[in-house]
């Protein structure tokens, strides 16, 4: 993948990721999140992880986003009214986030392998799904079934939680 495409998609992802946090209107935040995730999916594909990129678009830009928008519309949430901002809390939050960022910069800067480009692949990985599927059903069969139980429990939990209490 050419370098400028990496920077375009990375900037797209970061700008719209910041827009999620900055936007006052929840619908605008949700739509920014979609664009951010599509940029992220493009980055996954630039790393030759085609299956993960497709899953990202299907699950996040598809299912999760519909869920978010559905809930926002259902609850009829409006843009937040301006409240008095607690400057101390905001400054603290931004300071902690910046400290985290500085630590990441420091660690990555001192990480020898981080300065190396990616080694070339032996052949193009067009059978990405096949390789992941084989690994998933052979080596990781038990975790896969546990995930299935987790999703079942989550489904039952959601139904129970959103049921109206009989009075």
């Amino acid at each position: 993948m050419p370098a400028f495409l990496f920077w375009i998609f990375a900037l797209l992802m970061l700008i719209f990721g910041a827009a999620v946090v900055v936007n006052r209107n929840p619908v605008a935040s949700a739509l920014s999140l979609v664009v951010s995730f599509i940029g992220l999916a493009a980055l996954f594909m630039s790393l030759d992880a085609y299956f993960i990129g497709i899953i990202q678009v299907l699950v996040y830009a598809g299912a999760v986003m519909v869920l978010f928008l559905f809930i926002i519309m259902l609850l009829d949430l409006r843009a937040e009214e301006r409240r008095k901002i607690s400057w101390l809390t905001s400054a603290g939050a931004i300071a902690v986030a910046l400290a985290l960022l500085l630590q990441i910069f420091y660690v990555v800067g001192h990480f020898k392998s981080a300065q190396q480009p990616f080694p070339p692949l032996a052949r193009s990985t067009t059978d990405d799904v096949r390789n992941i599927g084989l690994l998933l059903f052979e080596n990781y069969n038990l975790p896969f079934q546990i995930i299935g139980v987790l999703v079942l429990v989550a489904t039952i939990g959601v139904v129970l939680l959103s049921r109206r209490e009989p009075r």
Partner: protein
Amino acid sequence: MITLGDYLIVSGILFAIGFAGVMLRRNLIIILMSLELMLNAANLSLVAFSRFRVLPTGLPDYNVQVFVFFIITVAAAEVAVGLAILVALFRARQTTDVKDISSLKF
């Protein structure tokens, strides 16, 4: 030339944005979205490491991509449960603002 460090930095910035969102915003829906951003930042660095560690067969390390697949599944389940809790909360209190939900505050 794009290096592993570039991906790690981008992923770190995305994580910091999500973290700032969780700390700064008071709307529960936006907090859930910021959590998703953080989870995806972790996924990005995992996939970058997977591509960086090319196995002797000349393929990327697919173990990591299976791990990312599990993370995406758990994240989807987490969003579903979180939004269901949000709906139950909205029915009880008619608010999604964390400042209005402080019954457990010490």
